[in-house]
């Protein structure tokens, strides 16, 4: 199953998620007009979500994202771990 969700998130920027999944998440691409330093942390965020069950809750997804944010001291402007998780959850239906 391939799905997509797009939201202007609470922090102000646009986030689009394209996701491929069956029982678990196989592939994920996050795009948008937000800011994140270092930029390549987004790839690690995408990777950490891959493998989660398709019915993973918002908090599970957000905590996976937060773990990368904390380890790598990632700074996000216009988005947050919670907002990203919300768009991913919406794409999963």
């Amino acid at each position, binding site marked *: 199953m391939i799905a997509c969700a797009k939201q202007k998130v609470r922090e102000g920027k646009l986030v689009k998620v394209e996701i491929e999944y069956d029982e678990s998440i196989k592939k994920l691409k996050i795009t948008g*007009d937000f800011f*994140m*330093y270092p930029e390549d942390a987004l790839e690690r965020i995408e990777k950490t979500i891959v493998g989660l069950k398709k019915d993973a809750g918002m908090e599970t997804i957000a905590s996976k994202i937060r773990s990368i944010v904390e380890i790598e001291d990632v700074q996000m402007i216009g988005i947050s771990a919670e907002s990203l998780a919300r768009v991913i959850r919406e794409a999963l239906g």
Partner: protein
Amino acid sequence: MKWRVVELETYDACMNMALDEVAGESVRNSSIPTIRFYNYKPSAVSIGYFQGIRDEVNLEICRELGIDCVRRFTGGGAVFHDCEGEITYSVAAPLNIFPKNIIESYRIICGWIVSGLERIDIKAEFRPVNDILVGGKKISGSAQTRRGGVLFQHGTLLYNLDLETMFSVLNVSRQKISGKMIKDARERVTCISNHCDAGKEDVYEALVRAFTKGKDFEIGTWSRDELTMARELALKKYGSDEWMYLR
């Protein structure tokens, strides 16, 4: 600390991105902070690092109109860089001379643009995160990144508006390029020529004065090594499909 100011120069989109990256590298390697002003020729669309190019840009129309397209190494949104209608700037400097708080550092650099506009009698204000408004309408947008002890910020200041071309190259279907949409955009976006008669040269002079006020600076140029590195980056990185279609 002495700043280097590289005067208004014109390059294509790939070379402009490459020179911006080189400016950051030069801060990292030799702590030379650089302010540069530039234009794009041919006109170009730049997209944010995290954007999908096919989502944002009508590549077919860009090809038809001879408009370049480039992915920036900074986040943010897609920008149409009209070769006649804007002045673009970049600032590369040691991170430790700016506030750690990202919004506050945007406020400082965007404040230089606000001061430049004041010099031509335009009252502007910074709107966090990264915009400058005149009369509630956007006149300038910027994008910042921080890496390896370097703060880098670039942005555009609109001199003229060509909304029809902007809407044709940014990915809005032909059917949607309606009069209403252009009218809506005119209510949200403005440019210097809507507010004063200053020529582009006057605007540029005002910006140079505002960006350099209170700084020890010299008008400088790129070194031969910097230009060589930039040409290589323009060709192998910014001009590559791998970079263009990264997302």
